[in-house]
């Protein structure tokens, strides 16, 4: 992968930026805050989650399991966190704030659902809280975790109503929209945690869809998203040049599941953006969803074995054709 310095040098060499622009980018990089790689952030988020669970049990015992008590305490916790803006006040306070945010949101969600006796209303109310928190509290951990709560409640609402499984596709469309908003088009760094959260939500959704609902709406959705992504990668390319990729995506959609398409899309997105966690997650999803797909086929083991050999052989032939078409080209 190309380094930042090499990219800046290349941009200066072709006249896209001048020497001052190059230096400005290097200076920006030197000033930039760096909180560490993803696993350091994951450690902090994990600690905050564990603490939030103890905090939650404590408040539950304190309020005597009263729903309005949950709403009041949840609101107090969130308001305290947002008003105090502790993100720049040291690691301990920042992590405590994250734990309080998680705890406050869980309490509000439980309180809303208990008071309204409706999971949908609870999901809607927590979605509003999540949006407000996202806007008011610029912490990546909070921004990643907050959208997952209304998503979980929406899933619970879907499975609470028999026959409403098709709503899963609508939720998938919304989450896919979040991914597109965060990672394509004009730069929106603030939306990146929302996009990462939506990727996780999509993996869960496609797992549920594979098990509980008709797959074709999500397949169409994912295939359309991948075609659009291909077109966005090569702007200005004529339709005829895009066609082979679209046909390949359509064929893949006809033969696989939304989860497999998600895995492929995530690997492609990770490679394009230089995002290694996305590549790793994409490969993981690919393995999981492919295994599940073949396991679920209602065929005998003999037929399955031929399908596996044929599809694997087709991929290897496709790979050989690619290599033969442009040998030695690795870029």
């Amino acid at each position, binding site marked *: 992968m190309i380094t930042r310095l090499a990219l800046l040098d290349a*941009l200066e060499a072709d006249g896209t930026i001048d020497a001052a622009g190059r230096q400005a980018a290097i200076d920006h990089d030197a000033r930039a805050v760096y909180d560490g*790689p993803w696993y350091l952030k994951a450690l902090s988020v994990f600690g905050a989650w564990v603490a939030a669970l*103890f905090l939650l049990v404590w408040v539950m015992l304190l309020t005597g399991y009263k729903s309005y008590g949950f709403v009041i305490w949840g609101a107090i916790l969130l308001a305290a966190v947002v008003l105090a803006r502790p993100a720049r006040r040291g690691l301990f306070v920042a992590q405590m704030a994250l734990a309080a945010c998680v705890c406050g949101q869980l309490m509000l969600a439980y309180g809303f659902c208990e008071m309204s006796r409706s999971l949908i209303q609870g999901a809607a109310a927590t979605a509003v809280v999540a949006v407000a928190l996202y806007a008011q509290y610029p912490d990546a951990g909070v921004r990643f975790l907050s959208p997952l709560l209304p998503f979980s409640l929406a899933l619970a609402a879907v499975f609470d109503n028999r026959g409403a499984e098709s709503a899963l596709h609508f939720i998938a469309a919304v989450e896919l929209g979040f991914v597109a908003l965060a990672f394509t088009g004009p730069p929106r760094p603030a939306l990146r945690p929302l996009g990462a959260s939506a990727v996780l939500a999509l993996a869960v959704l496609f797992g549920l869809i594979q098990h509980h609902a008709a797959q074709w709406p999500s397949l169409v959705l994912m295939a359309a998203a991948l075609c659009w992504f291909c077109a966005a990668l090569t702007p200005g390319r004529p339709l005829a040049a895009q066609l082979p990729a679209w046909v390949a995506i359509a064929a893949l959609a006809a033969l696989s599941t939304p989860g497999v398409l998600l895995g492929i899309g995530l690997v492609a997105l990770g490679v394009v953006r230089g995002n290694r966690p996305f590549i790793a997650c994409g490969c993981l999803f690919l393995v999981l969803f492919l295994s599940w797909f073949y396991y679920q086929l209602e065929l005998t083991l003999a037929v399955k074995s031929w399908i596996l050999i044929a599809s694997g052989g087709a991929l290897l032939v496709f790979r050989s054709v690619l290599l033969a078409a442009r040998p030695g080209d690795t870029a």
Partner: protein
Amino acid sequence: MERFVTETGPARPATQDWLDELRAEGVLTTAQWRVAGERLRASVPWRQTADRLLGVTGASLVLTGIVYFFAYNWRAMPPLAKFAVIDLAIVLAVVVALRRGLDDLIARLCALSAAVLVGVFLGVLGQVYQSGASAWLLFAAWAALITPWAVLVRFAPLWALWLGVADLALVLYMSDRWPALPHSAPFLVLGAWHAFALLVRERAAANDRAMAGETWLRQAILAVLLGALMVPALVFVAPERTVYVWDDLGFLAWVAACGLAWWWFLGRSPDLFSLCQVALSVCFVLLYTIGFHILPKSDFGMLFVFALIVVATFSGAAFVLRGAMRTMLARGGSVE
């Protein structure tokens, strides 16, 4: 949150996230951001990525299909045919690996498949000629037979398979031969075995650049090592039953493993992910100790105090790890 300046920023990989930040803060204009994005995408090794993904997925599907085919026809096949099929597959995999050269990815995957098939062969051998031998013998024989391949091919996944098989042999041997041992003893032995494996891996990586690049193997070995030693350590710090000398030894071994791993992965062979594993292990043992001793004897108000302790512990870990990261970056290392 503690913030500091990175000293190796320009040497880090260029990503679209970084370009987005430059655009959002006005360092790049929209036109410059667009051109930079196109240049970044042009630098992506698309064909290499597609080649790997297609090769690995295709080979995996074909192999799984072959396994399914024989699973379906297994009962109907005479023993000789079973052996012939597996032997043929092993020979085929080895021939392809040798013809392509052992530096090729497909050749290495073939060698890995051949190593897996050796285990299948031994399993069938045990099934056809039932001798009543212990299960650990199968895994020990499997590990012994694939050792020369692992040494020759120098492929991290093959070493991971070898270690997994050897682990199984060791665990089964202990439960078969030493059934009266306390629960902690097998974990202590497993930990010691992984400590040895880690030493060998570090030694090999010092002489072999290909192995040195495969840090995930080291991280996987360390995860099993710390996980295994944590069991006797937890029994020692929070005893619910009689503490045996194995638990004392296990606790001391865990402390020593954490200390040595921290020293090694901070200064000698910098690896922040491994340090993160050590920190997580320490946090877990510390919190388990505190929780075990204070929570059952207190009222529910102590839950709030414990939540504070949890946050303090993980904050402390993050603080120390960021200090370690700063040290690594100052020495010109990478933490990505």
